[in-house]
């Protein structure tokens, strides 16, 4: 990245939008993962998933707090989490896809762990010190998450005929949501131009390498690239599948029924 001193800092609204995309993907994925509590295939796996969930929730909280400050409208992290509708959420649509089975959850996790790894590696050197600090801490956590999920991908992909059938089906089903993970827009460009975030091309290349490694270990074949004109909703622009509304209505039910509730 170029030296930060002589670069224009992007508008706070643009930075808030960028940070919110990161925050929402972590938050929505955490909510999906915590649905496994009480349903995981083994006690040890349940604790493993819960640990990843709590890491993701911690990342989301730090990012939401920062996004709220950048936004400057007096909203708190809780306001952003609990009082926004699906159209205001900017998470990757992949994160909101349901836990159809354990294989689907693992495929979703590998694809998003690889994304967060690629993002945080670059963001740890961001010209925005706050973002760099959050990314550095999150990167350490992600370095555990990715081997955890890719380990499971390998066990399922290279396991029994049934586990392979399920993981192949999940990969084919979920791959169409990966288009937006590696496609940049004007927000990404403004952040990259100010060295506040790595260029999307760098994130895309790193993501691709990590995913290829995970798929190869699991003896899985990478599906064809998603065409740019794919009709799949683009989460970072606030477009979502019907699953996000269901997820949010459950996650937000308590604060919406009892505004300001505390315990």
């Amino acid at each position: 990245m170029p030296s930060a001193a002589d670069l224009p800092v992007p508008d706070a609204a643009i930075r808030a939008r960028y940070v919110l995309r990161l925050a929402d993907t972590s938050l929505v994925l955490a909510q999906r993962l915590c649905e496994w509590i009480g349903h995981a295939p083994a006690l040890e796996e349940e604790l493993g998933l819960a640990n990843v969930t709590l890491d993701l929730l911690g990342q989301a909280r730090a990012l939401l707090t920062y996004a709220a400050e950048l936004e400057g409208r007096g909203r708190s992290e809780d306001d952003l989490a609990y009082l926004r509708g699906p159209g205001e959420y900017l998470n990757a649509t992949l994160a909101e896809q349901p836990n159809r089975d354990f294989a689907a959850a693992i495929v979703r996790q590998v694809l998003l762990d690889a994304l967060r790894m690629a993002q945080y590696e670059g963001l740890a050197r961001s010209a925005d010190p706050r973002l760099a600090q959050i990314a550095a801490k999150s990167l350490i956590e992600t370095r555990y998450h990715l081997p955890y999920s890719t380990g499971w991908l390998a066990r399922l992909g290279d396991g029994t005929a049934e586990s392979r059938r399920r993981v192949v089906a999940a990969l084919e089903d979920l791959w169409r949501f990966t288009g937006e993970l590696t496609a940049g827009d004007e927000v990404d460009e403004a952040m990259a131009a100010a060295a506040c975030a790595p260029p999307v091309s760098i994130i895309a290349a790193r993501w691709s390498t990590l995913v290829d490694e995970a798929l190869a270990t699991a003896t899985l074949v990478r599906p064809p690239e998603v065409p740019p004109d794919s009709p799949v909703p683009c989460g970072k622009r606030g477009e979502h599948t019907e699953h996000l509304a269901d997820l949010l209505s459950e996650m937000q039910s308590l604060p919406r029924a009892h505004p300001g509730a505390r315990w």
Partner: protein
Amino acid sequence: MSEDRASTSKEWPLYEVFIRARSGLEHKHVGSVHAVDARMAIEHARDVYTRRQEGVSIWVVRSADIVASDPAEADALFEPARDKVYRHPTFYDIPDEVKNL
């Protein structure tokens, strides 16, 4: 016996978990986890036993690989030591000049 069970059961093998609390201390047995392989056993041990910063290092070993003494032989193994309390280093006067013994 445990091997017979493992071969007929769909349960994951059991691993014993040892945690070192701090550098310089020894690894202590803390419990066990089920896992399909050693890598998963380390992950499970980390997720189950180090959630509250209990350790800086983990050992896992397959429970089936541990050779244990037979409780039926306890008398033969341990009884002879019972009347040899002089083996405890409490029968010696330690000179004041000796600081570390």
